[in-house]
């Protein structure tokens, strides 16, 4: 939006926190990519090396980020709005729980046995469902069981994907 809506600025101040943050974000990402591809040889034009394109793209990304950040000082645009921390915690947390429990996990002293879809499914639905503002616990629990059963029938049996069901109980 910002580049197109031309409103002449009187002096520089931040007119779009969203664009400024976006520009800085691009610069940080690009700088990271540039630093981590530092050791890769860029090669010559005749024989491009592995490092040439990552570095070139990183430089362009950083330049675009800088343009975006500078543009935010001149042109009006959107402001940054709040985050949905609850969504991040419960929805993404649910996915992580699924990842940890589906086939088990071992990290130092922490050991999680392979629980399979029979447990991981309801766990994911029940945990992530807590993210909704209008959650109803009873409804959610019933839905978690029902939906998991439907998924097991669909993915394990109808589509026969090799996903563990309940190794600790059924051995599959």
């Amino acid at each position, binding site marked *: *939006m910002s*580049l*197109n*809506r*031309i409103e002449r600025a009187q002096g520089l101040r931040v007119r779009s926190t*969203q*664009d400024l943050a*976006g520009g800085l*974000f*691009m610069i940080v990402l*690009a700088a990271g990519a540039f630093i981590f*591809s530092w050791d*890769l040889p860029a090669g010559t*034009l*005749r*024989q*491009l090396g*592995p490092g040439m*394109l*990552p570095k070139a*793209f*990183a430089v362009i*990304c950083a330049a*675009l980020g800088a343009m*975006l950040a500078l543009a935010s000082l001149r042109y009006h645009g959107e402001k*940054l709005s709040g*985050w*949905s921390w609850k*969504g*991040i915690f419960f929805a*993404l947390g*649910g*996915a*992580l729980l*699924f*990842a940890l429990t*589906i*086939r088990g*996990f071992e990290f130092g002293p922490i050991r999680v046995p392979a629980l399979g*879809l029979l447990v991981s*499914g309801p766990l*994911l*639905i029940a945990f992530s*469902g807590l*993210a*909704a*503002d*209008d959650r*109803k616990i009873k409804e*959610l629990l019933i*839905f*978690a069981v029902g*939906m*998991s059963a439907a*998924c097991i029938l669909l*993915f394990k049996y109808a*589509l026969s*994907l*090799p*996903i563990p069901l309940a190794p600790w109980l059924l051995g599959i």
Partner: protein
Amino acid sequence: METIAHLSLGFGVALTLKNIALCFVGCLVGTLIGVLPGVGPIATISILLPITFGLDPTGALIMLAGIYYGAQYGGSTTAILVNIPGEATSVVTTLDGHQMAKQGRAGVALGTAAIGSFFAGCVATVIIAALGAPLTKLALLFGPAEYFSLMVMGLCFAVVLARGSILKAFCMIMLGLLFSTVGTDLETGQERLTFGIPALSDGIDFSVLAMGVFGFAEVLRNLEAPEARDVVKGKIGRLLPGWDDIKQSIAPVLRGTAIGGILGILPGNGAVLGPFASYTMEKKLAKDPSRFGKGAIEGVAGPESANNAGAQTAFIPLLTLGIPPNAVMALMVGAMTIHGIIPGPQVMTRNPELFWGMIASMWVGNLMLLVINLPLVGMWVKLLQVPYRLMFPAILIFCCIGIYSVNNQPLDVAFTALFGLFGYLLIKLGFEPAPMLLGFVLGKLMEEKLRQALIISRGSFVTFVERPISAGLLVVAVLVLAIALLPSIAKKREEVFTE
């Protein structure tokens, strides 16, 4: 007459009982997921990708094509009934379609959309069949330099046609290209930007990126806003348009099909322009333009036909040149690669039954939509009333099972969650993630072609402007960018995309 021989080969493949069934299931589940508000075609296809894994490549592609049409049509249904466009191309349908629904003519709007789409789909199928063979021959003339320039042009179009700020779309394309360099270098075998994580040595997994950014991040975005769903209450009304409606829609459908079909072939999301162009045209041609926005049937018939025609002709650059013109087609590339097919001119010569079977199944898919969607409208309406608090856990479990099944790797699910967070961050910063996916898919191919071209030219960049086709493509790319940056055009562009 070659075309007819090809098409009959294709129909021979597509009309086997198994493939009809796959197409049917694809259309059905595609619509089922696509009809959910806030789930566009990109998210639908990424969620449903895993259910095609167990199939042979031809069957899988036929099913995917079905899913694609179903998702498209599901988006139109949501646009008409709930006033939430699933994606950019059905924005226009909300204008008059939802008004019609409010006047109790939801059924007629849905019916007109389906019939218009079916007609457009039939025409587009013939166009693809007719253009497929000659364009493939053209593609064989392309050397690495031409391919590289063509992709540059495609990305320039994608920048210009993206929603929102051009600069931000540019950022996303470059970020996609940057992500595509992660992984083992093809020529030297050196690891790039992998941080020593073994899972990254093959590069960022396509489905992980797509599902994270379009599945998870979408859920996070929808969770944040308390939903205001304006589901049409009351009757859907009869589905088949009356004689007057048909008389009013014929011309818009024909014009929409032509516009959408032509724009869809353009590399770089040309299809997105179709519905806008069609709507503007109908409004200009109408005797009484003031009816538009208040439930004019032409405003549904034209754009919907253009939408479907464009959605289908967008396959042409993908199937003939191997270059996806937009994010949805980029997803199709990912899906094809998972099934071991590299899209490009060689597909037609090496797997003719797959190529023509898929084209024929597009027509079958369009017919399916007509057959299953209209009788099932009542079911879609019920589905629209499922509250989001139950919908998103269901979307999440589909995504999780899906990603797990790609490589049977729990770690992939964790990576997807990470990309979900990343995608949410992008949304918060006002970036539209679709161009990133396109850049990501084109990136590897671009690097390969660039290297080949430079080896052939002994390290001279002049090769890109010396060769006439390549130079022409680059000139078009520069022109498109320059025109879009002109202040007067930029203003118009903004109007189109905010309307």
